[in-house]
């Protein structure tokens, strides 16, 4: 049975923890709003890009000379997994769900006898994946110092990916990130970025207009495809960012609530014990008086 003083100390420490988690929740909520706005602001560009590329690629579907970024190398022996996670923990299952998806995918590919290379974006993913796939990690990008994600950050990642691709280091690239659905639900997602894949529905609406191309269709395609990789990565990073703060917010909300429950329980047993002690002291006084 803990003494009264122990209980008092524990209550004080849980209260302090609760204050921290509460503050973190507020901060996460504020940052989430910003991250969500950023993700929404980036949407028109990504949508336009997708539409244009979908119609261009539909036109180039049967073309044997189509750029490799579109048609692929024709093999799928070497896979590159771009795993985007958060820089920090304390966000519930956010990091682990992305990593689990990536790891399952990697293990499946390895079981099929494929070669797996991993590029990690974000410190958490790198730390955890390094334990299992130490030899598979080819590159590591961190945004620890970055306050506000900008397109330049995504471009940096894209450039590394494209460099590897141009050197023939891999055939298929898949991007792992958490798609932001709502504050309480973030879905870990795998998306193939090389060779590029487009939504068919958008392709059919996009190809309706007969375009004039300047310069030629092929040149535009060659210019746009690398840019598209950057755009996709940018979008994934923004979604990830929003998901991270969403996950953190709900995790901290839970923690605050748990701390509250714990405080209630501890206060109850503290009061009981205090009462018992008072009763005990009273009995002692009374029986002492009776003995006189």
């Amino acid at each position, binding site marked *: 049975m803990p003494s009264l003083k122990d209980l008092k100390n524990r209550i004080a420490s849980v209260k302090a923890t609760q204050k921290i988690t509460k503050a973190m929740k507020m901060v996460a909520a504020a940052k989430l709003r910003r991250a969500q706005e*950023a993700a929404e*602001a*980036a949407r*028109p*560009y*990504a949508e*336009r*890009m997708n539409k*244009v590329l979908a119609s*261009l690629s539909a036109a180039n579907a049967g073309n044997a000379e189509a750029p490799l970024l579109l048609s692929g190398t024709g093999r799928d022996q070497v896979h590159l997994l771009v795993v985007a996670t958060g820089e920090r923990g304390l966000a519930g299952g956010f990091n682990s769900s992305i990593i689990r998806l990536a790891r399952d995918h990697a293990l499946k590919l390895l079981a099929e006898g494929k070669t797996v290379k991993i590029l990690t974006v974000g410190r958490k993913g790198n730390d955890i994946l390094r334990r299992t796939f130490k030899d598979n990690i080819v590159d590591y990008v961190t945004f620890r110092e970055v306050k506000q994600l*900008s*397109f330049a950050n*995504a471009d940096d990642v894209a450039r590394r990916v494209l460099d590897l691709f*141009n050197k023939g280091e891999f055939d298929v690239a898949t991007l792992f990130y958490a798609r932001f659905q709502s504050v309480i639900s973030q879905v870990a997602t795998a998306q193939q970025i090389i060779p590029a894949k487009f939504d068919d529905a958008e392709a059919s609406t996009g190809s309706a*207009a*007969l*375009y*004039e*191309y*300047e*310069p030629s269709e092929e*040149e*535009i395609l060659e*210019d*746009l495809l690398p*840019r598209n990789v*950057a*755009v996709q990565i*940018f979008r994934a990073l923004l979604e990830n960012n929003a998901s991270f703060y969403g996950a953190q917010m709900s995790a901290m909300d839970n923690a605050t609530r748990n701390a509250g429950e714990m405080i209630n329980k501890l206060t109850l047993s503290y009061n009981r014990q205090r009462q018992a002690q008072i009763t005990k002291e009273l009995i002692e006084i009374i029986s002492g008086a009776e003995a006189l």
Partner: protein
Amino acid sequence: MADAFNFELVSPERLLVSEKATEVVIPATLGEMTVLANHAPTMTTIKPGVVTVKLASGQMDKYVVFGGFADILPTGCTLLAESAVALSDITRETLQARIEAARADAGAAADHEHRTKLEEYLAQLTELNGAILPA
């Protein structure tokens, strides 16, 4: 009064402009082109340069864009710029920083074809520098 059409200037980060315009001058890769209403559907890449927009209200706006492409339809014109800034916001320092970065990239480029492209980009930037910020 010329017909108005929808003009949108989008960068990966956000939608910068979405307005009715009567005339837009775009620095296309193969030379500047002016877009008016009912332009034939055209897709073109753009080089670093100045975009001049004449809004339906008669106001003239200028933006500096750094590469990207334009999607032109009879009813509208969408400019997807890799990065875009209002002309009044650009300073000699930021532009110089971009030129330095491009120069470093060009120096580091491994294959010939890539370097040619980067050098071309560098030349376009330098030209832009001279055009909008006369020494």
